[in-house]
């Protein structure tokens, strides 16, 4: 019988957690937000999501074939997740070639050029979004209001309205509207309630830690409260700035992307605070009304640097005298 024994190095037990399982769990956690988006903006949102996911998976399959990698890797869920996240970052009324092109760029250039899963520097979905933003800015900023609103075509996002100092136009978007998604915005970012449900699921499963989302959101809330008010310091509407844009989607689902965020807890907090500060700076001073995606991309670039200096303390570490 001894010729049938398996010899391997321990540990001989392994946890059940797998890469594939994590990817599909995140995808599952994003379903409520997508469903809410489709409910709010109508079937166009669903078509956009489908186009994005199909394009992402098809691109992944094609590039894997070209790179002579295992074609089965498309089922690890990472490509579908990228496509889904990209679609969530698009305006609901966009033509279908837009998400398709964005997903192609996200997978081919954002991910596979760097070496595929685990090696990309930038969050692929956000890289795809940045590409679309530069290439077709008009499509990317043509918002539609919820399908039941009167002016369903030109419904600007709450942050854009604030940016243009049309604050008066905003007073009818209550916190509740922001929370449930009764407002203009990207497909996946509008319904904060649905995003929070997904995020709680990921927390309970232990797939994301609190470090990045909490430090990110707290930084945005704090800076907005201090500097972003109309009546001087400490008059900003923190809750509004947390819920109005893509912050909740970004903080829970995109800044927490394993591959492109720091490894250690300390690094994650630095990353989150950095994202928060950049988001605030872009929202307040830059030409764009929203800064979540660019701030995450900038912090992605800094991740190797953060990892170099923010690592856990060794057990029994003593300062050399």
């Amino acid at each position: 019988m001894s010729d049938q024994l398996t010899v391997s190095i321990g540990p001989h037990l392994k946890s059940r957690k797998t890469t594939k399982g994590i990817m599909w769990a995140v995808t599952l956690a994003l379903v409520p937000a997508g469903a809410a988006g489709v409910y709010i903006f109508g079937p166009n949102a669903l078509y956009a999501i489908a186009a994005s996911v199909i394009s992402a998976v098809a691109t992944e399959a094609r590039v894997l074939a070209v790179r002579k990698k295992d074609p089965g890797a498309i089922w690890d869920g990472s490509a579908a997740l990228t496509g889904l996240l990209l679609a969530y970052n698009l305006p609901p009324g966009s033509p279908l070639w837009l998400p398709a092109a964005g997903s192609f760029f996200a997978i081919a250039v954002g991910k596979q050029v760097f070496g595929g899963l685990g090696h990309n520097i930038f969050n692929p979905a956000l890289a795809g979004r940045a590409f679309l933003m530069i290439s077709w800015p008009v499509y990317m900023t043509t918002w539609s209001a919820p399908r039941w609103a009167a002016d369903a075509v030109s419904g600007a996002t709450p942050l854009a309205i604030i940016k243009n100092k049309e604050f008066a136009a905003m007073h009818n978007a209550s916190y509740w509207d922001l929370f449930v998604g009764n407002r203009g915005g990207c497909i996946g970012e509008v319904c904060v309630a649905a995003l929070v449900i997904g995020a709680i699921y990921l927390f309970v499963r232990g797939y994301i830690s609190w470090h990045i989302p909490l430090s990110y959101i707290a930084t945005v809330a704090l800076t907005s409260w201090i500097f972003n008010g109309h009546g001087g310091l400490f008059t900003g509407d923190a809750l509004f700035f947390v819920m109005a844009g893509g912050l909740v989607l970004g903080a829970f689902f995109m800044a927490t992307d394993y591959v492109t965020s720091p490894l250690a807890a300390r690094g994650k907090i630095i990353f989150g605070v950095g994202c928060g500060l950049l988001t605030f700076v872009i929202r307040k001073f830059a030409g764009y009304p929203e800064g979540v995606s660019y701030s995450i991309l900038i912090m992605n670039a800094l991740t190797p640097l953060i990892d170099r200096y923010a690592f856990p303390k060794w057990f029994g570490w003593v300062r050399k005298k």
Partner: protein
Amino acid sequence: MSYKFYGGVHPACSKTLTNDRPVKKTFIPKKVILPLSQHTGLPAEPVVEAGEKVLVGQLIAKHSGYISSSVHASIGGKVSSISYSPTPSHPRALSIKIEAQDGEDQELITQKHPDISQLSKECLLSVIRDAGIVGLGGAAFPTYVKLSPPKGKSIDTVIINGAECEPYLTCDQRVMIEKAAEVLNGLEIIMKVGGARNAYIAIEDNKLSAAYAMERALEKSIVHSPQSTVKIVTLKTKYPQGAEKQVIKAITNREVPAGGLPADIGCVVQNVGTAFAIYEAVYLGKPLIERVVTLTGSAIKEPMNISVRIGTLISDLVGAAGGLKGQAAKVIVGGPMMGISQYTLDVPVVKGTSGVLFLSKADCPDYEESVCIRCGACLDACPMGLVPTTLMYLVKNGNYEAARDSGVANCFECGACSYECPAKIPLVDYMKFGKAKL
């Protein structure tokens, strides 16, 4: 009252197979293989020759050098050869083989030692050394070396390690339940030799029956006196709670400095089995010729805890446990986390063997390794605060200098990182390789 250590993982305990099975009477084989190096340090030097007759408990190989340990005949009979044979950790190790003659009495005649309180520290230490006692938790470090701290260091705290954090194993738990008073006697000797005034008995909270047994024995024991305090501490069930540095941290909140020894912070940790062996050596004059081993896993008919003569072949033990059930995919000596999988059953139980696991394919499925997705699970799992994934890349690329600077030497190979990795990367293999390259 217990502190936390950073990291750790929570594998399924799987201890219910054997945790309520009393230790079976000593299994006496017809033949034993006694490797000369069953411990950390230099191999022992044989003092018998092939063809010589030996008695149970007779010294057959003497410790050589400072860190070494003696080996005693575990059965009476004839030394058939001194030759190379496989052991659980080496494919070829010089071993003394003894074959028993029919009808020979295999009981060791032990005699009660007069009065322990009369024996000096040095005398006790030499008894422990001559009995060939090593750490029975698995590392098999010679106990007398551990109990004689380097000059300028003193020991104030003794920790009896009954954490037994490895899944499946229950031998320490059974020893605590069945031999609680003896373990306390052993502890008393350790405290006397080390000069310590505080002692703790560390038990994970999934073994409360053992904690209860120890508590009851402690009430009757004289070890707890105005001069010394002994406390039983239940620790959270978490792997590797029983690792030396982690158990010290969990109990005393002291951290052994990186690269240092427990003695640097005044602690010494001894496994419960070791404490029991010390008791036997000092009180009964019995050298280390047998130990409790857990035979378990879903591929063995009768999982059990059994007292086994050192040197017994695992193939003989399989017979004692009713044979195998179905197909064993892996036979592991030690626990499932740090144990060594075997390619043959003709290896002996050595002093450090705490269990033999017979796992079926379903218990240890093969996973396909995929690329690191930088999830950071290994950082959260590493009890030493290392960054296994970074070390893995450094070692993979042959960048051993950088791996050393990133602390690869601090890794004690618990395997928590490999356990937790969702990409199923054998991280601990890279750590081992990197350490070997330093």
